[in-house]
């Protein structure tokens, strides 16, 4: 629909991860004109995950890339449009929302914010210096460069566990450095790690520095917190999975309310404090950070958006 010669979409979804792709399947089937804007990978973090074992309906698991491709196809089949670009600002112009993007200005009656999260940096010496030549955050992208090499994985959550298992396809050995006294991953993953003789888990071990030379990374220096001793792990590369930060920096000058950690606050209808602006998936305050729940929230948000548009 257009007003003063400018096109106004019924809904613009920021991000094209599982949450907004699921939302788009619902809105397009209701004939709601739907545009998604994606700055990274279509499919979001799910697309860069090797294998997903806990998404309902796939008893043998499904590759993240395949699930993402299917979600994209399903949304596009019903008429969703996906634009490759980044949303840099959102402002209200009366009932209409204005989105500044790298591809120009876009207008919408409603907005779904489903921008997910991004990898957190560790913040230790050497991390920046060796980024891309020994320090990595994406196992499915760069794991293949470590065939028969030694790796360190930093982190003790589900992502670190899952990615370590993927990296054993290539690496000869992996030292996992876990800061706390136990892993935060699911029992299924912990069991798989313990059964894998290529992986050694070091609990109570901090990562203090990544050391190398002009040929790349040589070792990771940490501290064994129990013994209070410095420990060193020789390696050719380091993969870091130490948590996720919300992708909300583009909202900092907007009226949209965030929680202390920067996640978007919503009510039970998944609407933010700005009427007509909704949020779903990992970026929403209180989200449970799973593909199934991100998809479910997307479906809920779509139904709330339909109701908003009808009124």
């Amino acid at each position, binding site marked *: 629909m257009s007003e003063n010669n400018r096109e106004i979409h019924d809904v613009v979804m920021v991000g094209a991860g599982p949450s907004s792709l699921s939302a788009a399947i619902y809105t397009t089937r209701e004939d709601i004109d739907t545009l998604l804007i994606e*700055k*990274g*990978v*279509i*499919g979001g973090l799910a*697309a*860069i995950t*090797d294998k997903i074992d806990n998404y309902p309906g796939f008893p043998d698991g499904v590759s*993240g*890339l395949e699930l*993402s491709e299917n979600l994209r196809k399903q949304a596009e089949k019903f008429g969703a449009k996906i634009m*490759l*670009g*980044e949303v840099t600002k959102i402002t209200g112009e009366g009932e209409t929302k204005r989105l500044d993007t*790298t591809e120009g200005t876009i207008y919408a009656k409603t907005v779904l914010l489903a921008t997910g999260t991004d990898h957190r940096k560790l913040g230790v010496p050497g991390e920046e210096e060796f*980024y*891309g*030549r*020994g320090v*990595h955050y*994406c196992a*499915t*992208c*760069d*794991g*293949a*460069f470590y*065939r028969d090499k030694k790796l360190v994985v930093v982190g003790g959550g589900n992502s670190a566990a899952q990615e370590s298992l993927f990296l054993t396809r290539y690496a000869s050995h992996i030292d996992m450095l876990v800061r706390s006294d136990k892993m935060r991953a699911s029992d299924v993953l912990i069991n798989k790690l313990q059964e894998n003789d290529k992986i050694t888990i070091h609990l109570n071990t901090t990562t203090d520095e990544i050391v190398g030379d002009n040929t*790349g990374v040589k070792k990771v220096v940490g501290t064994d917190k129990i013994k209070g001793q410095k420990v060193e792990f020789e390696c050719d590369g380091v993969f870091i999975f130490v948590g996720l930060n919300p992708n909300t920096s583009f909202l900092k000058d907007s009226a949209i309310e965030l929680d202390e950690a920067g996640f978007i606050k919503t009510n039970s209808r998944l609407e933010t404090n700005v009427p007509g602006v909704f949020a779903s998936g990992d970026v929403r305050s209180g989200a449970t950070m799973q593909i199934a729940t991100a998809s479910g929230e997307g479906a809920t948000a779509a139904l709330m958006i339909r109701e908003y548009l009808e009124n």
Partner: protein
Amino acid sequence: MSQNITVYTTNSCAYCGMVKRWLDTKGYAYQEINLEEQPERQQEVLEMSGSLSVPVTVVNAANGSKSIAVGYNIGKLASML
């Protein structure tokens, strides 16, 4: 001579797929070099980009200049073409 674009990739890299998709939507032709299938070419990428992290996109412009993007960054890619 017109510009020449090369994208270095690995098999399971989703960001590599996005670079190719972005180039396709903008109508640019490119050649792909899969570093998992051609590991002997990894050193050349490391030397050229200072990085062994894919995707790496190399644009050799018609005037002979060369620009390189590591990762999938639409703004950077657009400025190179």
